[in-house]
Structure formats: C-alpha cells, structure tokens
C-alpha cells in the first residue's frame, strides 16, 4: 500500500503547501509516501521532499507537463495510482489541484474531499473534516470508496522537516494528444512579493485608507513584517489594488498566523475569507466596527497615525 502526493512547483521550486501535503501523507501512516512531481522541477528540491516524509519521488519528466494542463495531470496521477497500488492521493489546495483532483476522482473511481483541515479519523471507516460555508462551519464526511483523494487546506497538519533525502526516479505515463487541450499563451505574475495563499503574515487595507496613494504605509508595514499585502473587495473593485490581493468570500481565502486589518469594516463577506487566521489584529477608527468582534487584538485609532507607529515598533523589535 502507498499514498501518492501530487506535488506542485513554481519555476522548479517545490511549493511549501505541497511539502505540507507530503507531511500530511506521512502522518496518516497508510504506507509508503510517494511524491509525484510533473515537469521541470529542480532535482535537489525533489530529493529534499524526503525531509517532509516522502519515501520516494516519481518524476514525470515529459516536457509537455511543464505547463499545467489539468487533464494531463489527472491522467498522470491515475496511472501512478495504478502502478504503485496506491489507494490514497493527497493534494494541497491550489488553483490547479482542485480541478486535477476532481478529474482524477472520476477517472479512478475514488471518493474525494476538498478543504480538509485535519488528519482523518479512521476509528470507524475513513472520516475527514472539511471546511464549509467559507470557513464558517465544518462537515465530517465519510469517504466510502476504496480509493480516496484528499485536498488539504493550509495548516491541516504540523509541518516537519527532518530525516534524509528521497530517491528520485523517472516516471513515463502514457499521455495522449487528447490530454492536452489548452495552449498557455502567457502569464502575468507578481514577482518578488510574498503571495497571499502561502503567507504567514498578511497586512490588509480597506476603503478606510481613502485612496491608492496611501498604500505606501501598508507596504512599509508589510515589508517590516515580511508579510503579504491584501485588501477588501471595494479596494480591488476600485482598482486601488490588483485583484489578486482581494481577500474574502469572493476573493482569496487566507489562513495566515497573523492577519492585520487596517481600515476594513469587517463585513461578513470579508470575514469569511479570514476567519481561519490564527491571530487577527484590527486597526479602525470606529470602535463599533464589526471587525472588532472577530479580532484578538484591537486598536481604535486613525490608521494614518497608528500604522507608521506600528511599523517603527516592529522595526525596533527586529533590530
């Protein structure tokens, strides 16, 4: 028996979330952990998956897999499941993995749960806890089929880095023309910034900041903290900030260790995207702002005075 982990990389570098998925697979203790990597990943990076608990790495090297084609990835996983006699597949939530997992579930006749937040409970069958209603509730779901696919959210398992390196072997699944349907014609991607879905700390700004010209202080605070920047929906609708920073029910759902909200009222749709943050700090000049009800630490004050002071205090602490 073995467990396959679908591992993603970003320009060769293995994603932290995928390393977490390997930790999850290792923690469920259901056989050998096999990390499956598609496309052009750095060999050293793949070996290091051993530290997260991978026993082996399968590397599907075919160059057509460099570009994320969902159907092709699903074929690769399905074939790896057959070859390796694997009943369980683990994936970390991403813009690619949900669709890949959904298609694999159909191909391989498997039960599938996404947004799983904890290790499974196997005391009576195989039960997972998934987040529903945009983080406002959970559902315990029994996966009934012999084969199971689990998509995990951030922090579903304790992260570990120990042990040695994993052996990498080439994997050449049979791929058909029909597995490749789309042509990627370009990418427009932020570089050199901390990305929201993976960020440990996020500084987010709302309409209370009055205009895009005032984001300098948000960026300064984020830089001092090594944080990603986020915003509320109206801020991205008004194009003060790029869409990728929009946090909430209809934007990115985040689960950082620390979320600092500045000049955001805390509408329920915004809270839905941040309620799985570990610690929330709210800075708002209105003591009645609903966000305070969801916060761990609150500051009633004018952002234009408070934020620069906070940045100075962070810098002083770092020195």
């Amino acid at each position, binding site marked *: 028996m073995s467990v396959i982990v679908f591992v993603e990389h970003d320009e060769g570098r293995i994603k932290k979330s995928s390393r977490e998925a390997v930790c999850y697979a290792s923690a469920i203790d259901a056989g050998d952990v096999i990390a499956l990597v598609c496309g052009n990943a750095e060999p050293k990076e793949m070996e290091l998956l051993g530290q997260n608990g991978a026993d082996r790495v399968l590397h599907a090297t075919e160059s057509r897999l460099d570009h994320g084609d*969902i*159907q092709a990835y*699903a074929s690769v996983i399905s074939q790896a499941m057959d070859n390796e006699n694997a009943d369980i597949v683990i994936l970390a939530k991403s*813009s*690619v993995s*949900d*669709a890949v*997992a*959904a*298609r694999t*579930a159909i*191909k391989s006749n498997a039960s599938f*749960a*996404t*947004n799983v937040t904890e290790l499974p409970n196997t005391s009576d069958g195989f039960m997972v*806890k998934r987040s*529903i*209603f945009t983080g*406002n*509730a*959970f*559902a*315990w*779901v*029994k*996966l*009934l089929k012999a084969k199971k696919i689990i998509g995990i959210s951030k922090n579903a398992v304790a992260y570990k880095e120990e042990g040695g390196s994993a052996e990498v072997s080439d994997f050449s699944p049979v791929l058909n023309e029909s597995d490749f*349907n*789309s*042509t*990627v*014609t370009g*990418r*427009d*991607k932020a570089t050199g910034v901390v*990305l929201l879905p993976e960020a440990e700390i996020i500084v987010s700004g709302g309409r209370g900041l009055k205009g895009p010209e005032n984001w300098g202080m948000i960026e300064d605070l984020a830089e001092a*903290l090594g944080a990603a920047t986020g915003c509320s929906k109206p801020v991205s609708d008004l194009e003060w900030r790029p*869409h*990728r920073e929009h946090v909430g*029910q*209809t934007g990115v759902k985040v689960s950082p*260790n*620390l979320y600092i909200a500045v000049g955001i009222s805390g509408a*329920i*749709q915004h809270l839905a995207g941040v*309620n799985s943050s*570990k*610690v929330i700090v709210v800075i708002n000049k209105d003591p009645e702002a609903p966000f305070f*009800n969801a916060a*761990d*630490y*609150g*500051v009633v*004050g004018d952002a234009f005075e408070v934020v620069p*002071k906070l940045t*100075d*205090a*962070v810098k*002083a*602490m770092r020195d």
Partner: protein
Amino acid sequence: MKILVCITHVPDTTSRIAFTDGDTKFDTNGVQYIIGPYEDYAIARAIELKESHGAAVTVVNVGGAETEPTIRKALAIGADDAIRINADPEDSFFVATQIANVAKDGDYDLILMGRESIDFNGGVVHGMVGELLGIPSVSPVMKLDIDGNVSKIAREIEGGKEFIELKMPFVAGCQEPIAEWKIPNMRGIMTARSKPLNVVDPVDSEHPDKLVKFELPPPKGTIKMIDPGQMDELVSLLKNEAKVL
C-alpha cells in the same frame, strides 16, 4: 451558440450558519436564499455573450422545488429557459453526474459554472462534469472571450493570471472580474414568469461519500484593546503572548 449555466441555490452571504437535528441538518430558519455569487458572474457573462455573439442560454439547478424562485431569478436576469433536476444535491459527484447527464444530449458549446459553491465550497463540480463528458474544464476564469470556435481565457493562478486558448466545448468555473453582476429589471421579472422551467428526474448515481455531522468553529476568545499610542506593547504581545512574530 448554446450555453448551459449551472446555478446553486444557497444561503445569502450574511446568513447565520447553524445546525439542527443533532448537528446533521442545516438550520434554514430565517435564511434567505440566493444564486451563488460566483454563478452570478457566470450568468452575467453568458448574457453578455448572448448579446455580442447570439446564444441560447439555459440554466440548470440540481435541487428540490424550493429552488424555483432562485431559478426564476436567473430567467429574469436574461436566461432563456431552465432545467431543474429534481433531487437533493447531496454530494459533488451526484450533482456532477446529474449535470453531465443533462448536458450530454444538449450540444452545449459552453458550460459555465461558478468557481465554487458558497455552501459546500468544493470547487470540483466543473472538473467532474468535464471529465464525465470528456471535455476540458478550466477554473477560476477571470476573462472569457470567444473568437470563432476558440475561446481566449484568463485564469487566476497564485499571484496573478495565466492566459489560455481553448477550443469549445468546455466547462468553465467563473469568478470576477469576468462580468459585472446583473440585477433583474421589471421587464425581466415579468417575462421570467412565462419562460420554460422544465423539471426532470435524476438519473441513478452512487454516493461516494456520506455526511456524518456538522460542526461550528469554536467561539472567538475575548479581544484585547491596545491604546493607539502603545504600538510597542502590541508588538510585544504579538511576539510573546500570541507568538506570531
């Protein structure tokens, strides 16, 4: 061109989430239902394509009779007709099987969905329907244009977007800013009443998973207020008490 838009009937985004019957049923008490916000984007884009390219737009929902007011709203926004598959949408596989069954004979060029439902948040029905029908699926789609039988798409990726070209037919999960939400006008509401809403029976399907119970998150602890002049105190609390710095 024929477009199928798949919509959910979900609690309004401001609903209080609670459960009854020993945490096995969603508490519908006082809850208002809406078309899922992501599907609102899908409908809006379908109507725009209808206006620019000419298209017949059908909406489909897997649900009981209680979802009909929500389906009528989609007709009021501008869809031409509707199908309700008369069954409880128990799990994603079941829903996908039903949608694929309706779609397989419908000859649709595009099947538009939301990026995810806001109750179940699976983000999986589009992929499953695509696989069941043997056609591509793409999500989350921020832009979708049509040029002959090729569609030009911007898909969200972590930290940005990716531009894709794809031949129709395919399934797409939509999100902003693909189109602006449309609100039905009076004329739309009047004509929606007489548009066809066909109720069909579900096909047999397996249930690969089973809901055991719901759970609410633990209540938030009490908030600590910090004086705006004492930001060093906040930093020290974050470092030493919350241990997040």
